[in-house]
């Protein structure tokens, strides 16, 4: 997948830092991946791994300062978004690329009717009359399973799951080519999560939207994604098709993640947690950033920078100790 030129979205060597007081926080440390049209890539990792920073860089909505894009390119249809003037970028946000945020409670304006909030996106990017915009709002709401007559309700009149649907309707209003969903179901109850995931899958098929799905939940990722990137300490440590990563997890961190979650269908008497703690991003361990927690680590892992290498066609792993996965 890496290097397949002409991909719809191609992120290259992305480096993002934050400065806080005198510290430099290394949030994203050389991330590269490609996404083909109509496909969904999952970014999996724990809090602070840099998943959201990657997403926000693509849309260029990171606050600068404190955030700084130090290096990298983000090609969307061959155009480097990081080099576009802000005025051009505004035309892309909400139209070509849109984002669904984790918390639907804070993503909506509480004193504006939800219909007007969706109409705002539509009128901003299209020359349409008020009436046409309104008609599209109602169509969008119905697409996500909300009766059109609720367009004149305020966000507080909706439950959590319904609010997230409104947010999704807004994100899809201009038929974006790329949708970035940052933990879109984390704040929702399981039965509501199931509704929303099913809807996302349906809409993806219907609109042929490419998607980046950020999640810490391996179950959610298994359900929605085609490809998977496991992120640790601002780096992709494993990348491949969903089948490759789930059937043949190779990086010790990925293997650790699978061992640490209780499974609904698997009788584990005891979980095998990953020892230790995620690293401090202002003071990353030398060599492989995972080495202090890794059961396989040796001197080599401590001293040298570990590259992402292809261990089987299309399956990449940033580890020198991990053996080639068995089929």
């Amino acid at each position: 997948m890496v290097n397949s030129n002409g991909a719809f979205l191609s992120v290259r060597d992305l480096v993002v830092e934050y400065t806080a007081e005198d510290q430099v926080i290394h949030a994203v440390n050389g991330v590269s991946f490609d996404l083909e049209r109509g496909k969904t890539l999952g970014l999996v990792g724990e809090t602070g791994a840099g998943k959201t920073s990657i997403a926000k860089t693509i849309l260029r909505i990171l606050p600068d300062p404190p955030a700084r894009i130090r290096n990298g390119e983000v090609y969307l249809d061959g155009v480097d978004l990081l080099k576009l003037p802000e005025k051009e970028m505004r035309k892309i946000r909400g139209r070509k690329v849109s984002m669904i945020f984790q918390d639907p409670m804070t993503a909506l304006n509480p004193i504006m009717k939800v219909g007007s909030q969706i109409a705002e996106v539509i009128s901003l990017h299209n020359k349409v009359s008020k009436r046409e915009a309104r008609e599209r709002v109602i169509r969008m709401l119905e697409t996500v399973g909300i009766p059109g007559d609720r367009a004149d309700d305020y966000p507080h009149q909706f439950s959590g799951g319904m609010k997230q649907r409104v947010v999704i309707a807004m994100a899809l209003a201009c038929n974006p080519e790329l949708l970035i969903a940052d933990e879109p179901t984390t704040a929702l109850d399981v039965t509501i999560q199931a509704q929303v995931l099913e809807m996302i899958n349906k809409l993806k098929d219907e609109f042929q939207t490419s998607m980046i799905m950020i999640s810490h939940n391996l179950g959610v990722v298994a359900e929605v994604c085609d490809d998977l990137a496991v992120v640790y300490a601002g780096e992709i440590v494993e990348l491949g098709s969903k089948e490759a990563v789930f059937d043949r997890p190779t990086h010790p961190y990925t293997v650790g993640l699978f061992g640490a979650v209780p499974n609904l269908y698997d009788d584990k008497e005891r979980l095998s947690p990953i020892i230790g703690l995620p690293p401090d991003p202002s003071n990353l361990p030398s060599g492989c950033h995972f080495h202090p927690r890794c059961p396989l680590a040796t001197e080599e892992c401590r001293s040298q920078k570990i590259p992402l290498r292809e261990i089987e066609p299309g399956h990449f792993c940033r580890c020198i100790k991990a053996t080639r996965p068995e089929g």
Partner: protein
Amino acid sequence: MSALVEVRNLKKYFETPRGMLHAVDDVSFSIEKGKTLGIVGESGCGKSTLGRVMIHLLDSTGGSIYFEGEDITNPGRRKLRRLREDMQIIFQDPYSSLNPRMTVEQTIMEPLVISGRYSKKERQREAERLMAMVGIDQRLRLSYPHELDGGRRQRVGIARALALNPKFIFCDEPVSALDVSISAQVLNLLQDLQDQCGLTYMFVTHDLSVVRHISDDICVMYLGQIVEASPTKELFRQPLHPYTQALISAVPVPDIHRKKQRIILEGEITSPINPKPGCRFAARCRYAREECQQPQALEEVLPGHRVACCRVREVNAL
């Protein structure tokens, strides 16, 4: 086997401007000594309120609570103080449940100070022992909560709960705020402590995988009521209530080869304010009929497996 904790017809209502909110409505169960009861349900189903009423952080509206066979529904002040030593709580949010101005050691020692039975030296020795027990390095003794990560904070909360050797601990979503790799560490710790100290847990969570992993028995709650109660293995082998079936089918599983029949529920949990007398799940239930408008009793359908659904036999072809 003797029950350590038992509740009978427990009720907790809250008065709201729009009417009576039935947070816990006629709930009965018992927990045997040394066991873990899991209470699972979605937000707003009353699971946390239930635990808080049991350990007297909230007063009950009706029904009774028994601890070691004794009625503790309305304990006097002195009795309540003794109960506080026996019944403890671990909170969901390790950020807001610790006093930001107290060090790790002060936090862990506070229950010992309040009990009044320990000299300063004994308190320090106890704090040291507790820290070792929950896996907090001694050098963090004088650290403040903001200097600790979520997992360590939760360990401090656990050490504080254990300080007076309780018999019963109400664990209120203790790992929901933690990352997966850390959550596994805390779950293992809770299991070890249970074995070491013979603790009895009531474990409240919305996460079915976690509740399955840690519980001996499970109660599934919906809008203040228990809709299904069963030993854990049996519940997951054969969920009988239509809500439990939908709930289990909704969990995304990290396994790409398991094809599962997903039951997508229409709508969301309705309001617990002034609920109608019938089955509260009926509005979302695909099997709902006329007779579901009648109150539903929790009935033993299979040995040890209780379900509150009048159509349970029909629906499951039992």
